[in-house]
């Protein structure tokens, strides 16, 4: 049986107590120290009722405290539910209530959550290091919130089995992390890739480097790499695609050996031009444990980078609408089966059943496969290539957004009769969500303010365009193709032209 990440971490604490587990610009923690801190916090959580089968919330920005929180929650046997302290309290409250989560760890006092346990509570020093609660492979390891098309977020529950399979493949098959690596933690706490990025080094004796919170996080990356001696880091495909050609040589010069990427389609040149630095592209929805397919870039890699092939224990099927396999080279929807499937959407059995179908290709009864909603084809060489979505889910800065959830929130604003939201790559300032609205116009400030009470920041449209009515196509649906072409940002330009005349 594959050991869980808790087993692997505890083995490192026993075998390499003096190795550095965590590093910031200010200090570092050995495995023995980090093991002790997380064991005491885990013991406190267990005294409060946490354990296998339970869920503990984590309200903390990226930082050493959040890392302590993640590991402590896992070691208590419970599943970690990370929440963004900057997200609307209303939304975070709803998620905690909806998952029946009663215990929460926080980096700082939270106004809307007076009962939260502070991660650096000084009284934890007196806590006994109770024997570890060994979670079962089928117990949940973490729960990640994703956008829901019907207007409510969904919480995906992922068992230890999937996470430990990915970590084992990352260390033993994919060479994503080595005991002498320093992995720079670059992503948000609430993204499932964070679980992979921070836990795999801790499972093999490597070091997690936590950057300082920065004013300009993207530009600060190089500085953090140099200051912390990072050898591996994850850069979202949304950044690496356009800027990899310029960034990778600088990272290689600073000593980085591997850049992990993912989150959206990787599209860009020069990804194998910073030898010996290697780029590895991971693909996968949260529902399949971070990334069940991996691709390693080389000189022959095309600009539109393949998503690779399944890791150990994972099966990938390309099926038509009747769930029949399509031949290699033909387009179909990608289904994922085997190790790594999430348990489903917590508290939403209907939505779970709609996405996790019985696996018709498995001899074992009860096995399921996840319908990714991604259109792909399998190349003759066995690599899979992403072609697009089968629905209107989009990715913005690597965040997965169901357009339906944004439109639902817009329709809840007074005065909005109808709403359509599009991702416009041609927006001023770069790709942006644009809301096309019909009804009684509200000011931009008012509408953004109302949405910010409901939605995470990356889901709030940056532009609002009021129309007399939304254009319809022949079947009477909103004509998204027309909206995709509609000029929308010229209001400011008009104002400007007027200024120029006067």
């Amino acid at each position, binding site marked *: 049986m594959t050991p869980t990440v808790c087993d692997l971490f505890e083995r490192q604490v026993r075998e390499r107590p003096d190795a550095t587990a965590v590093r910031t610009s200010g200090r570092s923690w050995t495995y023995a120290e980090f093991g002790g801190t997380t064991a005491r916090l885990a013991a406190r959580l267990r005294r409060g009722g946490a354990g296998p089968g339970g869920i503990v919330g984590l309200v903390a920005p990226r930082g050493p405290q959040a890392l302590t929180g993640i590991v402590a929650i896992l070691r208590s046997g419970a599943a970690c539910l990370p929440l963004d302290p900057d997200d609307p309290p209303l939304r975070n409250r709803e998620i905690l209530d909806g998952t029946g989560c009663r215990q929460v760890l926080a980096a700082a006092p939270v106004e809307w959550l007076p009962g939260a346990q502070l991660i650096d509570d000084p009284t934890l020093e007196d806590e006994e290091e109770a024997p570890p609660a060994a979670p079962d492979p089928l117990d949940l390891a973490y729960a990640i919130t994703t956008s829901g098309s019907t207007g409510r977020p969904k919480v995906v529950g992922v068992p230890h089995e999937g996470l430990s399979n990915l970590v084992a493949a990352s260390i033993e098959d994919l060479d994503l992390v080595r005991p002498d690596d320093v992995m720079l933690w670059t992503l948000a706490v609430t993204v499932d890739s964070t679980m992979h990025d921070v836990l795999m080094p801790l499972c093999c004796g490597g070091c997690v480097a936590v950057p300082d919170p920065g*004013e*300009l*996080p*993207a*530009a*600060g990356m190089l*500085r953090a790499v140099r200051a912390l001696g990072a050898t591996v880091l994850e850069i979202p495909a*949304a*950044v690496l695609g*356009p*800027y990899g050609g*310029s*960034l990778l040589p600088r990272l290689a010069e600073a000593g980085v050996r591997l850049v992990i990427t993912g989150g959206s389609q990787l599209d860009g040149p020069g990804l194998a031009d910073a030898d010996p630095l290697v780029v590895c592209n991971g693909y996968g929805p949260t529902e399949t444990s971070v990334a069940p397919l991996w691709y390693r870039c080389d000189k022959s890699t095309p600009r539109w980078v393949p998503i690779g092939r399944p890791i150990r224990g994972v099966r990938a099927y390309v099926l038509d609408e009747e769930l029949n396999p399509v031949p290699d080279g033909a387009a179909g929807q990608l289904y994922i089966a085997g190790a790594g499937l999430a348990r489903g959407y917590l508290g939403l059995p209907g939505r779970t059943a709609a996405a996790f179908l019985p696996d018709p290709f498995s001899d074992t009864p009860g096995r399921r496969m996840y319908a990714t909603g991604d259109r792909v084809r399998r190349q003759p060489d066995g690599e899979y290539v992403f072609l697009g979505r089968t629905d209107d889910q989009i990715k913005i*800065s690597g965040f997965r957004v169901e357009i339906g959830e944004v439109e639902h929130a817009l329709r809840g604003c007074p005065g909005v009769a109808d709403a359509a939201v599009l991702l416009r790559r*041609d*927006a*001023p*300032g*770069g790709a*942006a969500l644009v809301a096309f609205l019909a009804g009684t116009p509200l000011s931009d400030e008012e509408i953004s303010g109302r949405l910010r009470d409901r939605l995470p920041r990356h889901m709030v449209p*940056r532009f609002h365009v009021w129309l007399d009515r939304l254009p319809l196509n022949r079947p009477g649906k909103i004509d998204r193709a027309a909206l995709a072409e509609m*000029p929308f*940002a*010229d209001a*400011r*330009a008009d104002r*400007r*032209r007027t200024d120029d005349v006067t």
Partner: protein
Amino acid sequence: MIVSQEPVVEIVRRIVDKQLNLSAHGYELDADDDLWNMGMTSLTCMGLMLTVEDTFQIELPEEALREGTFRTVGTITAAVEAARSAHEKPERRV
């Protein structure tokens, strides 16, 4: 050394315009327009930083990697000129 005849401010203006996709929307950029108010995100700002560094073959010093440096075409131009003169007169560097 090959010195471009085009003033730095014009090159910066062109880089910003391309990075932020502004002229496509009929917008003419002034040297003091606040780019953060024109839709610039931390992602597009990083693209801007990398393109500026590549174009002028400079490395902006750490203290220049702030929001304020990238606020306007004027502030970016000033940062480029500072980095260039530091490069040309290393003995003056403090």
